């Protein structure tokens, strides 16, 4: 019985006003002018960032987790 109740809990919460357990997005779209500035992107220019990742990967044993611009160049 307890098991069945636990399985039903998500559905009940979904139907019964789950807003109470979820935080609201705390930065509104109109508050993102600083973040929209190009200087705030992790890598502004993919062609240049991809090259630096290639330089590191060719001379260091570590590979992966470079972020959006890296990984999988198909070369050793």
């Amino acid at each position, binding site marked *: 019985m307890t098991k069945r109740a636990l399985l039903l809990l998500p559905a009940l919460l979904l139907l019964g006003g789950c807003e109470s357990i979820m935080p*609201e997005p705390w930065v509104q779209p109109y508050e993102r002018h600083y973040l929209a500035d190009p200087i705030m992107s992790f890598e502004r220019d993919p062609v*240049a960032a991809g090259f630096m990742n290639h330089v590191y990967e060719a001379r260091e044993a570590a590979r*992966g987790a470079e*972020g959006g611009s890296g990984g*999988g160049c198909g*070369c050793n």
Partner: protein
Amino acid sequence: MVVTKEFRESYYALTKFLLFSVFFVSTAKAAVLPEERLDTLYHSYSGGGVTIDGPSILVRKNIGNNVSLSANYYVDMISGASIDVQATASRYTEQRDEFSVGADYLVDKATMSLSYTNSSENDYQAETVGFGISQDFFGDLSTLSLRATYGSDDVMRNGDEDFLGHAEHRRYSLGWSQILTTKLIAELSVETVADEGFLNNPYRSVRYLDPSSALGFSYQAELYPTTRNSDAVALRAKYRLPYRAAVKTEYRRYADSWGIQSDNLEFRYTHPLESENLILEGKLRFYKQKGADFYSDLFPYVDATNFRARDKELSDFTSTAIGFGATYLVPDRWALFDRKNTLNLYWDYVLFDYENFHDVRVHNGGDSVLPGDEPAYNFNAHVVRAYWSMWF
């Protein structure tokens, strides 16, 4: 049935997470396609007796409101003689051509992407295909991305037409980008890579003590395991300062089944000079690595271990990099095709300092240094990126 407090808490947390995800996936607003742009780069790496340079051209163009196509042509022209070549081979010149195409398809808040890369050298052919998906949610404060790639390589050896090795590479990555405040954004990246097949360089040798040799040592071919599994996790954050400038910090931890472990840390400072149409950038990067279990600068005798390597990239070493660069926003009166154009110049200086890779070139001068007593090797490199970018 007894339900422990821990189970209840973890179950509640999981339920909350799932509901949270479902709710925000369904209510977040649409994502956007990447910017349409053309980048023309000249790159150069010069250090350790080797120069590698060439062009890279990247173009990205949208078709309609949902599809973005990209293509990249990249060339490495390699010349010179690294320390390995100076010790055991002759100078050489070669070229690597890499061609990539990609497509992104935007569906509401999700972007799906496909990519194909072909890399070609006279003794190495590689093909990689990739699939990725990313999703904005939680009011666009969060972006979750998943990516998988599969690569297939053919390895040849010049001067030995009978030699053909094959390797496969599988990469799986997960990224979580999160806006934390109006001035702070962070990203968590995790990537696991599985390699299988012929993974060593067919030209490279290890050295071992050999009393019958005049120098006291001889060389034999490297031999690597045929599998390698690695995991990397990185956390990076960018913060907008009280004035118009930004600082970035990044930490990455890496470990693999060959016993290699590494950490790297990077700091970057970006400072625009609006009146001069300039964006200046400075960078510091530190990398420290513990080498592979089967690496040795000098093995005690021939066939001393099951696997053997003397590739300095698999040794214990540190590298330190300092970099500076500038982006110049071309004024409207000079802008090509009346578009936004930038001219960019970035320079990095990297010092590689090896702990257990010795400089055997001391023997070339006839010095009577005992094998293993040679000085540790180090070198510095200059890395230049000069490029022009234009937005359509």
